[in-house]
């Protein structure tokens, strides 16, 4: 093949360009730290990376949902613990008064104590986070009035903690303190029961006090059951959070495997490319210098 200086020049330009572009790609990978910098670098990996990104961001969202749900449930739990303590006192007072009393001062003390405890129960029933009442269901207004009438709803306020998996973040105040809507329809009406107890104590009605004691015991058990239920949900959320965290770690490590540059490999490749490029530059410089003109007089 006949070789002309033009061909040598074209070849040199083409090959130097190829070398530069290979080094440019490596340099981009090293400086960005990413193997795939645009979809055309590797379309199939891009697709995988985007799917991973979606899953990771879904995990983040579910984690954030769980954090909010845990806040709700923890506040609910605190309120339930308070209620449980109050119920202990109610039970104790009722027990003390089980056989009735003839001492007006004792009766008045018990009645006033019970009235206070009932009001405290109502206050706890109106517990809120920000402007949300935890026992009000879907309603956003104070669920219990001073008389203990429940105006919230029995709906459960669900949050998604994994795809298609929802957890209720509230306990219905009506079911808890009033035994369903209307009161007493599903179980013992605690607030109504205390009122009945107060009347029974005032009237020295031993049978009524006895019923009251049974009712209060049952009510305390329901509150304890709700506490256990809330604790169970908290455990479920905590487990889910751990699973999500594990899952996120796995996804991120797969993402890293696909996307992160192996600096050792890139460094070695870059030094290979640089050597080749330097050689190309040096031969180009030498070859393009050669001309018969230098040797003719």
């Amino acid at each position: 093949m006949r070789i002309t200086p033009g061909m040598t020049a074209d070849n040199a330009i083409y090959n130097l360009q190829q070398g530069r572009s290979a080094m440019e790609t490596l340099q981009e990978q090293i400086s960005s730290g990413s193997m795939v910098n645009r979809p055309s670098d590797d379309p199939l990996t891009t697709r995988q990376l985007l799917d991973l990104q979606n899953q990771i961001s879904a995990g983040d969202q579910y984690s954030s949902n769980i954090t909010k749900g845990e806040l709700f449930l923890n506040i609910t739990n605190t309120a339930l613990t308070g209620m449980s303590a109050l119920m202990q006192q109610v039970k104790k007072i009722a027990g003390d008064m089980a056989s009735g009393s003839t001492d007006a001062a004792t009766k008045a003390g018990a009645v006033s104590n019970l009235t206070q405890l009932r009001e405290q129960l109502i206050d706890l029933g109106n517990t809120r986070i920000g402007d949300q009442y935890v026992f009000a269901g879907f309603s956003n207004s104070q669920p219990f009035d001073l008389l203990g009438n429940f105006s919230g709803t029995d709906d459960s306020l669900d949050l998604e903690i994994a795809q298609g998996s929802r957890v209720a973040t509230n306990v219905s105040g009506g079911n808890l303190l009033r035994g369903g809507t209307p009161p007493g329809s599903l179980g013992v009406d605690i607030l109504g029961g205390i009122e009945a107890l107060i009347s029974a104590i005032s009237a020295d009605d031993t049978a009524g006090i006895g019923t009251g004691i049974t009712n209060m015991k049952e009510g305390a058990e329901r509150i304890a059951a709700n506490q256990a239920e809330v604790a169970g949900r908290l455990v479920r959320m905590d487990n889910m959070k751990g699973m999500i965290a594990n899952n996120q770690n796995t996804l991120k490590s797969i993402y890293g495997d696909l996307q992160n540059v192996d600096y050792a490999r890139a460094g070695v490749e870059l030094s290979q490319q640089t050597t080749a490029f330097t050689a190309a530059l040096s031969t180009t410089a030498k070859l393009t210098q050669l001309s018969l003109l230098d040797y003719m007089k």
Partner: protein
Amino acid sequence: MGISSIFDIASSGIAAQRLAIEVAGENIANVNTPGYSRQEVVMENRPVGTSNGFALGSGVQIQTVRRSYDGMLQQQIVNSNSTYQQNLARQQALQQIQPSFNELASDGLGKAVDNFFGAWQDLSANPAGSAERQALLSRSQILVDTFRQMNGSLATVARTADNNLVGIGAEVTDHARNLALVNTQILATNSVGGNANELLDQRDLLLQKLSDKIGITSTLASDGTATVTLAGGEQLVSGTRYATLYTRASAAVPPTNNIRLSGLGNPPPANNPALDADVTGTVGGVGNSLGELGGMLQVRDSIVPGYISKLDEMASTLVSAVNAQHSAGYGLDGLTGSNFFAAAGGSAATIALDGGLTAAKIAAGFPSVADPAPTSTGNNANTLKIAALQQTSFAFGTGSATLDGFYNAMVGGVGIDTQGAQNTAAQGAAFLKQLNALRSSNSAVSLDEELTNLTKYQRAFQGSAKVINAATEMLDVVMGLVR
């Protein structure tokens, strides 16, 4: 045979070597001229006569100045140029499109969709919260803006391609005019028996330039003139006549450029859009696969509309799914049946939030047994249903997929298209380089070779001069005899 014939032989030598040196000089001068083919002199001895009973030539003459040229190679270069330039145009457009879809480097539509549904999830934790509602509104606005921005940048790429057609048409016409002129000059040179080597080079170069811009078929007549037909069979250059390739706005809204071809002539008849052939559909070859013009047409007519229609499909699916669920729910104002997105905005270009949408109108509530016509502000049932749409598969033209999945596939598709165009363009460049190397090997000037020739012919010239010197001395000697 006398001494004078020595003068004849020597002077023929001087003349021939001088011409050879001229040709070498021409070659050296044109070492960097694009499209130039090296020329070489072909010498032959002059008719043989008889001198003293011996057959002896009467000197040297130039038979021809030959142009090193391979027609087949030339044709291949023309063809692969067309394909290469088409790929290049396509690659450039795709490289402009790709950044809009580059979800890896920056947050784009995929992230906006994610954030949109994330805002619904956040709202589910506090359905009455005005901060959450405001966040949802602004994230929705970002989603709408992202759709429109992507549509806009795609449309810009198509519009740029469309605008480029005007310039390409003018360039093609310019080359056609020059080719017709070169054809005329070739005929003129032929008619006086001249050697049209340089003109033939110019002709080939013009054919090559034409093939950059559009797909052409060229035929060379025995007189050296070229005839050029377009991919649709219409004549662009015929002998000394050529046609004008020009653009006219179409009747579409907004108008795009149609490509028309005038009649042949020198100069060609004035553009007559009513009568001139509309070659838009054929000029780029089958599937607009030829020339820069074909590339631009492909970008304008298939690549960009393809992506836009996918974006539209995604936008309309999102709008109708979210609206359907949203209008089933209840806002803080207790009203139901309101749209979230404007019902008319079923494409990436027109997607918008519903005109009446306010923070209070966002329908978070969904009827429940205890809350049949949601008046409770804490009702979050509808937010969960809308948030669940993110994981719902919809029937798209390419199959069933979630919104995220459909978009990710679209990004992958853009990547594959861009990578494909880059690869074909790179292969085309390598192939063309190989062809050009072959052409150079055959036709390009080698300085070393020309310098050697120069020395060779210079020495021969000196030799011939020396012969004249000898003949003069011989003549002097003869003259001295008679004195």
